């Protein structure tokens, strides 16, 4: 852990208004304010440690007030700051000749030639979906779609990766049903086709389901929109739904594990309005197309706070925001509620004053609320006022770059060697192989998922040239010759038995799936779902998975352009399996090169590319038929992998 060992310069007042702020700036507060210890309830209310509190006091040179502490609570939460994962994620390859935008923005962008580009991102909405499946999944779709159109891209495809407990338990059936309805309810309404996905059923997800959604969008290569609060004097404009009390502290909630009785957290889950999102999507794309915006960011986790702070951090500027001008849905909302609300379908734009009238006209046409709530400054300070008084003044750097980074302790699980051994005498050869085949085919992890994707409108956009049901989905672009192929993959059992290899295999499998339809893999986005980073075993699994994904991406030439980390996926101390999900995007230069997966006609030859070895470890067969999850994973030889994939594409 790195503690900024800067001693407090001054002992000052918490900011209460402009006067106390001014006293602080001239150092006068030091005479008056006695520095006291951290406030009561630091851990319970703010989920900050005492060390982190000291870091805050050091960074500010004074004690934060309650509102400011709330702000730090979310900005330094795992969800927003990536404080446990950042040291590992920096090992990902993130550049390449096709990468127009790597990690750090709302989504990654990849050049696909002829002046076109694809925006790509996957994100989790696990905790909310457990508490309220329909709205949790629906707002998960809403959030990722906003991330894509914020980049100036028109969303063209959604994929969902779901992990739930066994379906013979009615609670899990209800949960999966709610999640599927949520994805359908939101995705169908906004008119973005859900073209693929995957489903894994396992006991360990019974109390902690995973809902990951990937979105891809198309834009012109030279017109990538960025989330910058650039240009002091420019206006900060709030666009979209009004702010309510929903989802307050959602980011902090997503940074803690569940305990029994957390059903009470239902009010922390946001409620989605896909109709508003559809209008926002059209309005924002029109605003970007007409070049009326300096920067655009969606208000996702930690709402107005993180969106505005991040925009200022990227541009190296400051912001002055007036909370009295924020459109509110309820009366009597306190400043911290306005700052932390995660009400959905809201965007923050930075607009040059000269363009404000045009922006207003577009929003009026789409029947969307708009309010100027502040302006960009050159001070590097994030200043909030409410009811005419300054209520918070924080350095943008302290909230972002100076957030703590942890190198958490790691330890390989002691059970691992035992798990990796697979004495074959333990595995009797079944007598009736037909029965084995049928048992496996009807297992919900392997059986057809048509009942899910038939509830998704996978055809809207008249572009889905390979619908769900295959290894990869293929969507053609602008009704032309080019098409992109998409796949989401991850095998949690592999990652349990060998996190490094499991991570690498997710990348290899994604690339393989795209290759099978004739597409050249271009880039990946990853969603890393793990237990608590404070557990050394979990942290070890995380680091090994990240290393595996990174190495596979390097060897297969696939940059990681965006991603998301979801820690604390555990309930009552029981973590999920390490569950990275890798989303891969590939390009078909001509849609005529598309190969569909099914057998075409009797008499055709069936070829097997690659090598078959005596490998049984970690297989579905072992799990379903012998109820064993153990053994060594199949070998992964990157050179052979590349050769097989290239040969396959060459044959196609």
């Amino acid at each position, binding site marked *: 852990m790195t503690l900024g060992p800067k001693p407090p310069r001054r002992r000052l007042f918490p900011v209460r208004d402009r006067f106390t702020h001014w006293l602080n700036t001239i150092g006068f507060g030091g005479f008056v304010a006695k520095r006291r210890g951290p406030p009561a309830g630091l851990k319970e209310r703010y989920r900050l440690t005492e060390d982190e509190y000291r870091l805050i006091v050091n960074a500010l040179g004074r004690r934060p007030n309650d509102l400011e502490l709330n702000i730090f609570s979310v900005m330094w939460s795992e969800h927003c700051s990536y404080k446990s994962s950042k040291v590992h994620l920096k090992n990902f390859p993130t550049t390449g000749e096709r990468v127009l935008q790597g990690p750090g923005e709302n989504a990654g962008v990849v050049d696909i030639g002829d002046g076109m580009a694809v925006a790509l991102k996957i994100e989790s909405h696990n905790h909310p979906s457990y508490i309220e499946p329909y709205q949790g999944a629906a707002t998960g779709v809403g959030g990722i779609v906003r991330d894509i159109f914020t980049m100036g891209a028109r969303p063209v495809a959604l994929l969902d990766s779901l992990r739930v407990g066994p379906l013979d338990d009615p609670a899990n059936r209800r949960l999966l049903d709610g999640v599927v*309805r949520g994805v*359908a*309810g939101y995705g*169908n*309404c*906004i*008119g973005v086709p859900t073209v693929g996905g995957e489903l894994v059923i396992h006991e360990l997800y019974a109390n902690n389901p995973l809902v990951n959604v990937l979105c891809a969008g198309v834009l012109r290569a030279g017109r990538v929109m960025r989330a910058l609060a650039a240009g002091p004097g420019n206006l900060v404009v709030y666009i979209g739904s009004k702010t309510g009390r929903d989802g307050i502290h959602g980011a902090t909630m997503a940074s803690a594990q569940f305990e029994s009785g957390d059903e009470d957290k239902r009010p922390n889950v946001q409620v989605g*309005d*896909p*109709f*508003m999102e*559809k*209008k926002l999507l059209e309005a924002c794309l029109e605003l970007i197309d007409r070049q009326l915006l300096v920067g655009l960011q969606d208000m996702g986790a930690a709402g107005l706070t993180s969106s505005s702070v991040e925009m200022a951090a990227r541009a190296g500027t400051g912001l002055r925001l007036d909370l009295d001008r924020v459109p509110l849905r309820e009366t009597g909302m306190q400043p911290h509620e306005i700052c932390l609300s995660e009400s959905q379908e809201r965007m923050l734009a930075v607009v040059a004053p000269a363009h404000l009238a045009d922006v207003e006209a577009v929003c009026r046409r*789409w*029947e969307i609320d708009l309010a100027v709530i502040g302006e960009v400054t050159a001070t590097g300070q994030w200043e909030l006022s409410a009811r005419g008084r300054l209520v918070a003044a924080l350095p943008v750097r302290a909230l972002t770059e100076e957030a703590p980074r942890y190198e958490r302790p790691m330890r390989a699980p002691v059970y691992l060697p035992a798990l990796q051994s697979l004495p074959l005498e333990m595995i009797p050869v079944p007598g009736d192989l037909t029965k084995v085949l049928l048992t496996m085919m009807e297992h919900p992890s392997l059986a057809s998922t048509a009942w899910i*994707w*038939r*509830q*998704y*409108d*996978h*055809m*809207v*956009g*008249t572009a*889905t*040239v390979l*619908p769900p049901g295959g290894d990869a989905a293929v969507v*053609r672009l602008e*009704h032309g010759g080019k098409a992109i192929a998409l796949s989401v993959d991850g095998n949690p059992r592999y990652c349990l038995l060998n996190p490094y290899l499991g991570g690498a295999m997710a990348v290899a499998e994604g690339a393989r799936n795209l290759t099978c339809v004739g597409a050249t893999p271009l880039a990946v986005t990853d969603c890393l779902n793990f237990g608590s980073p404070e557990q050394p075993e979990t942290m070890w699994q995380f680091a090994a998975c990240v290393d595996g994904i990174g190495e596979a991406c390097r060897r297969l030439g696939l940059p990681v352009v965006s991603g998301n980390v979801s820690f604390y996926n555990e309930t009552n101390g029981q973590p999920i399996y390490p569950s990275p999900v890798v989303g891969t995007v590939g390009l078909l230069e001509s*849609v005529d090169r598309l190969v569909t997966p099914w057998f075409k006609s009797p008499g055709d030859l069936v070829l097997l590319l690659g090598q078959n070895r005596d490998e049984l470890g970690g297989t579905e067969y072992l799990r379903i038929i012998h109820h064993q999850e153990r053994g060594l994973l199949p070998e992964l030889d990157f050179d052979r992998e590349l050769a097989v994939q290239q040969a396959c594409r060459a044959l196609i």
Partner: protein
Amino acid sequence: MRVGVIVFPGSNCDQDCLWALRECGFEAVPLWHQQAALDGCDAVVLPGGFSYGDYLRCGAIARFSPVMAAVKRHADGGGAVVGICNGFQILTEAGLLPGTLLRNEGLRFLCRPVTVRVEQAHSALTRRCRPGDRLSLPIAHAEGRYWAPPEVLDRLEAQGQVVFRYCASDGALSPDANPNGSSRHIAGVSNRLGNVVGLMPHPERAIDRRLGGEDGRCLIESLLATPLADDARPKTAAAAPLSRA
């Protein structure tokens, strides 16, 4: 020939319809829901989607849009008006077509190809078809169960206003072939004159082999067709002109 596609807030098949119409040789233009005139369009398409989020009831809010008065005048004058999916729902809400669309029998959104049988070839959408033709078209809806009182259904059948029925691939009206529980397998109806047609399946998603089929093409091209010879049409629809209202 100029065809307008109306864009309501929440429409999401408007771009698909514009593309499909252009692919079939039409001049296709978007019409904003706030405008009071149809900009000289010879035919109007109300596309699928979730106009006004389907709040209150599918199509219940969209029917109050200013453009709907112009659509009604256009229909009254004999001009072609086609409602697809949500557009069909809007037309029933607006009283331009009989009946209503209820929640699917299975209570779920359904997106898959279905087979429909062309029941009559004198509507604005079926002039290029023959009665009995079987078409494979995709559906994508949660509220597509056609319903009307029995006496209304009897009248629709007697007057040849049932345009499409869900059927098995051999054309039989087996219960399995009815995806959403529609009364008498009805997938699409027209007004008495045949110039206003609504249907739940999406012909605009079926004009390209790459997307799984081209059976929707004959429907869209029917907008262009001059009326067939007299034998195919009832007397009332004899002179249904495709001119402006």
